[in-house]
């Protein structure tokens, strides 16, 4: 099938097999390896990217389903002027350690920020983070980063 979409603002056109997962298209065809693959069953959230303003598990979407969509990956966050405010807050609060889960968490939070659904309390921050597994940090640094940036 022909897939036409934009990824991080650039037009992409490719021939894809229907069974190709969006995450594999992003990593293997586009070589954007910032998006990580964890569980491939929608549990860990590592592969979360933004598709048409919504945070989406890219392991639970076929590349062909992104036809006509605007896709953004973690590579879109930093600009020539440096890291994004969200990335800087993560850095300040040591909200990552090994970094495997970080791209998925950053993209989830980026989408939530743009959708004006930013957590207003520690409990809301923890509820939001419950969709992404982190085995290093214990989440405290992320909660602190979220609360510092909000609302």
């Amino acid at each position: 099938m022909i897939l036409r979409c934009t990824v991080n603002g650039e037009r992409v056109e490719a021939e894809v097999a229907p069974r190709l997962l969006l995450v594999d298209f992003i990593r293997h065809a586009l070589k954007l390896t910032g998006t990580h693959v964890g569980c491939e069953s929608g549990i860990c959230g590592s592969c979360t990217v933004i598709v048409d303003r919504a945070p989406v598990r890219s392991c639970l979407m076929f590349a062909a389903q992104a036809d006509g969509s605007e896709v953004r990956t973690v590579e879109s966050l930093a600009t020539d002027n440096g890291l994004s405010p969200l990335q800087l807050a993560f850095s300040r609060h040591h909200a990552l350690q090994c970094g495997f889960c970080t791209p998925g968490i950053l993209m989830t939070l980026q989408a939530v920020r743009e959708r004006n659904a930013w957590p207003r309390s520690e409990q809301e921050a923890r509820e939001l983070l419950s969709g992404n597994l982190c085995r290093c940090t214990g989440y405290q640094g992320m909660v602190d980063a979220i609360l510092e940036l909000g609302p």
Partner: protein
Amino acid sequence: MKPAAFVLHRPRDLDDALALLTQHGADACLIAGGQSLVPMMNLRLATPSVLIDLNGIDALTGIRRDGDVLHIGAGTRQQTALESDVVQRHAPLLAAALRHVGHYATRCRGTIGGSLANADPASELVLAAIALRAHVTLRDAARARTVAASEFFLDAMTTAHKPGEILTEIVVPIAPEGTKVSFREHARRHGDFAIAAAAVQLSPKDNRLSVGLGAISTVPVICQRIEDGFRTGNFAAALDGLVAAEITGIDCLSDLRASASYRGKLAAVCLTDCVREAIR
């Protein structure tokens, strides 16, 4: 961990989707949000040879009030329904249930109809639909039919959906002014599958309590004894006995998360707390 090969169709309207479904018969599988189906495909527990993607069909989305009911299109994203002022105002129990469905990102992709059609025993939406006496509309190439939630959910992952049909909407009765609701569930962590869940709606206007209990049996149940007991005197004192009687009558599930015995005990606490919160 990659899905088996299949042919993907992306119809733009419902008639095309129904025609494809008729054409491919049992080989075809419908996909909406894919938050349950795609994990099954990645694990090759599901290997459909034809996938009909409903995401491009605008007619399946939308929320509208029609008299004393709310029509919610099957393709409406769970997060969209949760954030809807209309749903929060007119179907507050549904909104309360939606907060417990998966996680923010899976709710942004997962649909109302997909969750109902999947009929997982732990589904919050199935529980809310049963407690609220909602209906679902199913369409095939020839006609549409409406089925009560109590008759639609037959068993774990099994519904009265027939081959060739697409679930197009859920129809929920509007909550009367002054309605109070409570939705509680116990899961190992937020967003995980519920071990026990309860949904209660109190409508003071018609002095009616609606009570559903989910995740502990193959299909959520209506707690008729509690609903009836609410209309009699001294309800608060009788509640513990009514809850115990409800749990005794249920064949509780036993799985990796909880044994049947533990589930029953947890459900009793969950149900009691939920009723107390609604009638407080």
